[in-house]
């Protein structure tokens, strides 16, 4: 790691600490050098900076966030921060722009022994809902790498620090809660697994799910 990279990394995590006083809560697991996929809620561009800031340095050096290439390739500064400082695994979110399948890009990073930070909602959640439905990426990755533990990781408050469309952050205390690691059960159905993973993450939020039950097939909402 170059001096510039180290300087930028210290600057970014230091800034995150001053603004958010971020604290880890290792509720369901301990910081551990074994290979992991941290799957987290995504409400702000500051999300993985917070996870990154609370990981002990040796773990941080081996943990890479999965992020959208469209955002992090936009200009030279973002490119430097994204690829050189965070070592982000960049995937093309727009199918037509894809040079490579996102799954194989992520899979390769895991193959190199790194841990990943993944946002299974697929995009930033700017709605009033606590957590959006999960995309299939987490399931596909888990199916391909059954030996990697999946750690639900709840990031609290960052959406209030930097709401969508705002440039300057408001200082508010944030926390990152790590839940009990889970794995894909042999033969587990994709929907069942994704629901289970989403419920595990929601449980860490301490909030009620606005949509606990799947919408009935007939499309009629239950009477209140």
């Amino acid at each position, binding site marked *: 790691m170059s001096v510039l990279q180290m300087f930028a990394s210290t600057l970014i995590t230091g800034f995150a600490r001053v603004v958010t*006083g971020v*604290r880890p809560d290792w509720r369901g697991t301990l910081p551990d050098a074994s290979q992991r996929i941290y799957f987290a809620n995504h409400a702000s561009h500051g999300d993985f900076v917070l996870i990154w800031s609370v990981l002990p340095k040796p773990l941080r050096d081996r943990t890479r966030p999965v992020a959208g290439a469209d955002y992090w390739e936009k200009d030279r500064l973002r490119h430097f921060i994204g690829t050189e400082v965070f070592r982000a695994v960049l995937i093309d979110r727009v199918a037509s722009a894809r040079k490579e399948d996102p799954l194989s890009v992520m899979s390769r990073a895991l193959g190199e022994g790194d841990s990943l930070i993944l946002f299974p909602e697929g995009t930033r959640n700017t709605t009033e809902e606590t957590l959006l439905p999960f995309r299939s990426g987490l399931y596909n990755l888990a199916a391909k790498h059954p030996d990697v533990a999946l750690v639900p990781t709840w990031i609290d*408050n960052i959406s*209030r620090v930097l*709401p*969508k469309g*705002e440039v*300057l952050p*408001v*200082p*508010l*205390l944030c926390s990152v809660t790590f839940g009990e690691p889970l794995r894909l059960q042999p033969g587990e159905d994709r929907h069942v697994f994704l629901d289970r993973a989403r419920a595990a993450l929601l449980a860490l939020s301490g909030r009620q799910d606005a949509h606990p039950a799947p919408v009935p097939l007939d499309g009629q909402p239950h009477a209140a």
Partner: protein
Amino acid sequence: MPRETLILFAGVVGVLVFASAVGAILKARSGGDPSPTVDNLNARVKAWWVMVALLGAAIAFGKAAVVVLYAMASFFALREFITLTDTRRGDHWALLVAFFVALPVQYWLVWTNWYGLFAVFIPVYGFLLMPAIAALRQDTSDFLTRVAAQQWALMICVYCASHVPALLTLEIPGYEGRQVLLVAFLIIVVQGSDVLQYVFGKLYGRHKVAPLLSPSKTWEGLVGGVLSATLLGAALWWITPFTPWQAGLLAFVICVMGFLGGLVMSGIKRDRGVKDWGHMIAGHGGVLDRIDSIVFSAPIFFHLTRYWWT
């Protein structure tokens, strides 16, 4: 630096050495049995060492350092307070103004001795302009609740807290260049009262003052703590422009206000369903948990002193 400062500092360090020794003995006597009370006591004493070192260094460096230290305390306190309020996207600009305009300007006013504006900047200008900024965002859900909470946060965490360094701007005839001792007097009395209430409460506490609000506040602790801290204040008259009687009386007012501050802030914590404001100071909780009594006593002490002695 006045000679009294060194004597005071030596005295405070002596108390901390004593407290650390007591903590170590209690720990040894518990014989390895884990005791949350003793561990918490030791964590508190340890944090006190850090806080005394910080405050001592600030006082040694003079006014600029005291102003900066309190500006930082205000920043962390405001961060803790706003975290517990319900903010919405529409509050973003108003909050940015609170943190990055109101707070630095208030402390700049302390630094430049501009009393006239210092006294009205947040209660008048902040009071009227903050909700106006929020209104411009046109997010009306819970508008009054949000605006009121932000006003309160700014008044407590910035306006009230800034009265501690503002003591340095008081021009008391015959007391020139020693105002830093007024800061020391206020802090020693109010924190001494907190610590003595804790000690008396742990030793003799039976009857709770406000069981629904704070389970740890007892009448025995309150009376013992306030009376002994009042005596402590009277005994410190030689660092103040006051006579022993006046010092004791002011110390009593400071202690009572400090107690009420703790009570009010407990009420807010209860309302928000938390035990502590934050986690910044091990054993104590957040910054606000430590300075809640100071923010309530500082403005009153400031104005009583200003009215009768300047």
